[in-house]
């Protein structure tokens, strides 16, 4: 039976629901609720404490990021223990170096949760909507995350953060991957890399079966329990781009990065 289903065509109209489907559905809902409650607790109690306790702006930023990382780590632990998902994160000890630009593909809603939970001290380029959402506004403000609504401001701020020695998480797709579409990287990631990164490290994220993609509401969970595999790749060599004017160099690097991710993600994890 099991061997049979492994060879079943992917397009089978209805896959049999398994891995405690109803429980996973409930716990997926619970995860969203918990995220909301957690964000409220952080926003109302912990982050105001960080803001009030006297410290330099840099210290407050670092504390806010630490608080957030620990919280998200607990959240990942919750989802894992409740059976919502399983995951493995290979090579994560190589993340969090000063001035490191961490580039990741973006197959699911919670990729950023994983990266923020496991990369110490990192900033992140995130959508501007998080500054308008009352649940997330104080966190992204105090942690000095960078908003992506104006390309010019984003590039300048991201480069400044890297020059300052902060690690920075960036999703070159800009938004979640469209399932069954080729990757499309925004060139700003390559541009930021060449401007200011001390090192550029890819993180390849695979989710099987896919879940929480751009095309799905939260309650359409997969028939099987999803497994997240995050693999930290080798640093990208930027030497070939040096001495070339930035507009050309960033186009080259962007194509190289996109090819790198396409090749890597085609392989089984």
């Amino acid at each position, binding site marked *: 039976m099991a061997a049979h289903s492994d060879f079943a065509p992917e397009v089978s109209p209805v896959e049999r629901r398994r891995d405690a489907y109803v429980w996973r559905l409930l716990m997926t809902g619970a995860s969203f609720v918990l995220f909301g409650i957690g964000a409220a607790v952080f926003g109302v109690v912990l982050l105001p404490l960080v803001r009030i306790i006297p410290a330099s702006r840099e210290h407050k930023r670092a504390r806010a990021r630490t608080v957030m990382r620990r919280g998200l780590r607990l959240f990942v632990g919750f989802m894992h223990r409740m059976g919502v998902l399983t995951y493995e994160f290979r090579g994560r000890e190589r993340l969090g170096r000063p001035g490191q630009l961490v580039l990741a593909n973006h197959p699911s809603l919670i990729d950023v949760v994983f990266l923020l939970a496991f990369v110490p001290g990192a900033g992140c380029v995130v959508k501007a909507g998080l500054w308008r959402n009352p649940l997330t506004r104080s966190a992204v403000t105090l942690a000095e995350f960078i908003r992506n609504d104006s390309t010019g401001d984003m590039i300048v701020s991201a480069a400044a953060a890297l020059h300052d020695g902060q690690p920075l998480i960036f999703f070159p797709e800009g938004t979640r991957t469209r399932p069954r579409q080729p990757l499309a990287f925004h060139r700003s990631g390559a541009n930021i890399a060449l401007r200011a990164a001390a090192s550029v490290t890819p993180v390849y994220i695979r989710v099987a079966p896919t879940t929480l993609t751009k095309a799905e509401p939260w309650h359409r969970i997969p028939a099987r329990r999803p497994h997240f595999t995050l693999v930290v790749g080798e640093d990208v060599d930027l030497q070939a781009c040096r001495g070339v*004017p930035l507009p050309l160099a960033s186009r080259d690097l962007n194509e190289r990065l996109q090819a790198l991710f396409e090749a890597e993600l085609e392989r089984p994890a």
Partner: protein
Amino acid sequence: MQSDDEILERIRGTLVQLFQLKAADITPAARLYEDLEIDSIDVVDLMDEVQRHTGRKVTPEDFRSVHTVGDLVAVMRRLLHQ
């Protein structure tokens, strides 16, 4: 003090070098996005060059109203004469 023609000539040189454009296409009326295919990321690289030429700090704000090469000349002139 530089004339607009001199500034345009410098911009022409910069655009040719950075974006491998043809000098003849770079006229004051040429639109950066539509005619020269310079996008919002390129504009940041261009800002760096303007900063180098003028010795002034240039922000994305300075570039918000830049649509044509002529607008770019105007921004350069303003920065140089500040």
